[in-house]
């Protein structure tokens, strides 16, 4: 039945491609989380009236975030070729896609982090100050903790965008479902392959969304 409907689909190839997509997504989500939190914190803390108020730092971070958010992902990959080669020792395969994925997504997530932090009640930060909290305590135990639901839902949105980016990364032969759909499906006119790849990607997106929603809800005690 399956073989009749999808004569060109090899199960083993599909599993490999799915694994590559998952690998790229998960590692790049982790990288984006880390870098995005740092960028978001820098943006938020260096603002006028912030804990580390600093015009220069604020300007530099904002410039970095805005520039990298403005570059279309496909161009970012090409632009980062030399950097990727230097960092990863290769410009092909799932690993090679990671720098571009993370640098492409982190500024976006950084902005979401900044927005989330701005939503934290100023009064609560003030209360922590009045108790004699250090800045590090305020950052980790108040700001990041209180904005957790927004940080997670923002990460969910970013992760789903990243799944899309992994497919685009196919152009450098990054592997994964997007790559597979293009080279083995589209180019050979085996549209059943394209179709199965699409279903798998949609499935992955749904799973990420589902997990993200559950996490957000369980964290939100407001």
């Amino acid at each position, binding site marked *: 039945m399956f073989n009749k409907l999808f004569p060109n689909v090899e199960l083993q190839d599909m599993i490999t491609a799915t694994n590559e997509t998952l690998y790229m997504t998960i590692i790049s989500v982790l990288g984006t989380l880390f870098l995005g939190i740092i960028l978001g914190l820098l943006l938020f803390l260096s603002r006028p009236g912030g804990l580390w108020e600093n015009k220069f730092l604020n300007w530099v971070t904002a410039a970095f975030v805005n520039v990298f958010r403005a570059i279309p992902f496909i161009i970012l990959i090409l632009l980062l070729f030399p950097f990727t080669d230097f960092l990863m020792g290769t410009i092909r395969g799932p690993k090679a896609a990671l720098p571009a994925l993370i640098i492409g997504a982190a500024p976006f997530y950084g902005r979401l982090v900044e927005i989330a932090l701005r939503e934290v009640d100023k009064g609560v930060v003030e*209360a922590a100050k009045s108790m004699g909290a250090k800045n590090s305590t305020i950052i980790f135990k108040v700001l990041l903790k209180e904005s957790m639901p927004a940080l997670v839902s923002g990460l969910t949105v970013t992760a789903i965008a990243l799944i899309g980016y992994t497919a685009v990364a196919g152009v450098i032969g990054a592997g994964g479902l997007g790559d597979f759909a293009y080279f083995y499906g589209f180019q050979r006119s085996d549209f059943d392959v394209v179709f199965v790849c699409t279903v798998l990607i949609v499935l992955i997106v749904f799973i990420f969304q589902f997990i993200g929603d559950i996490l957000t809800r369980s964290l939100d005690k407001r």
Partner: protein
Amino acid sequence: MISIKELTKVFHTKDQDVTAVDHLDLNIQSGEIYGVIGYSGAGKSTFIRLLNRLEDPTSGSVTIDKQEITSMNKNDLRLARQEIGMIFQHFNLLWSRTVKDNIAFPLEIAKMPKEKREARVKELVELVGLKGRENAYPSQLSGGQKQRVGIARALANKPKVLLCDEATSALDPETTDSILDLLVDINEKLGLTIILITHEMHVIRKICHRVAVMENGKVVEQGDVLDVFLHPKRPVTKKFVDQVMGDPDQDHSLDLIHENYKSGKVLRLHFVGESTNQALISELSREFKIDLNILHGKITQTQKGAYGTLFVHVEGDQDEIERAQAYIQDTSVEVEVIPNVQ
């Protein structure tokens, strides 16, 4: 205990400079509940935030328990703040933490080990009457309960001073009273000095020992609550006193009294911080052959006893009435004959 000298805060905004607190001097004694009252924009919040330097002063000094807060470096200030509790109008609890963990937060900041922390939190939960609600999240609590968590949290590190910025302004009258009772309770139990900001004279009347009236960043009048109630000097103060003592029916009532009581005498009794003469009326009717008829009045309770005015009609033998009057004069209740009767 707390000494404030020439304290000034100027906010520089784009189009103007605002002097929120203006060369303010104040001394607050250990163990007292000190109220600061003023209308919106008087600079009350700015003033209290200067005390623990949530706002840095433009000039002047604040000394709490011999430590000069205003000259401290960042780290000393952090440590000093651990000994100054603060509660807020909007409670400012961490919604991601349970009641228990909210109360434990200042203890974490002070690096208290976990086992000790748990024991201390338990004590505090009992002190503020929240037993059984330890594991609730703030969103599951009423306003009054939230403020109790705020108070427990502020007391966690056994502070010497508690700062309250409009701590009851977001609560209904009944809940306000229960929170004020709690504040009096901890003031007595722990000997805590409390500084309390409000725009409601009712709050001052109910729990404060002394009061300062603020206007345009300055203290325009201060003293014992009862003195301020009895002899308000400034127009602002009079307005505030009227908030609780104001008796809009009094004039109308007096007119009716004049019409209706053509014989006997109408006396005005002024109670000024009475605690000993509260049974005065029953004493009078027992000791003298007179009939007493309560006509009109308003008596309120302050920390220093009853305060207010009572109009009574006295019927009886002329001499007997005069003897009763003399008797009252020997107590601390002020008495005055309302003319125009007879």
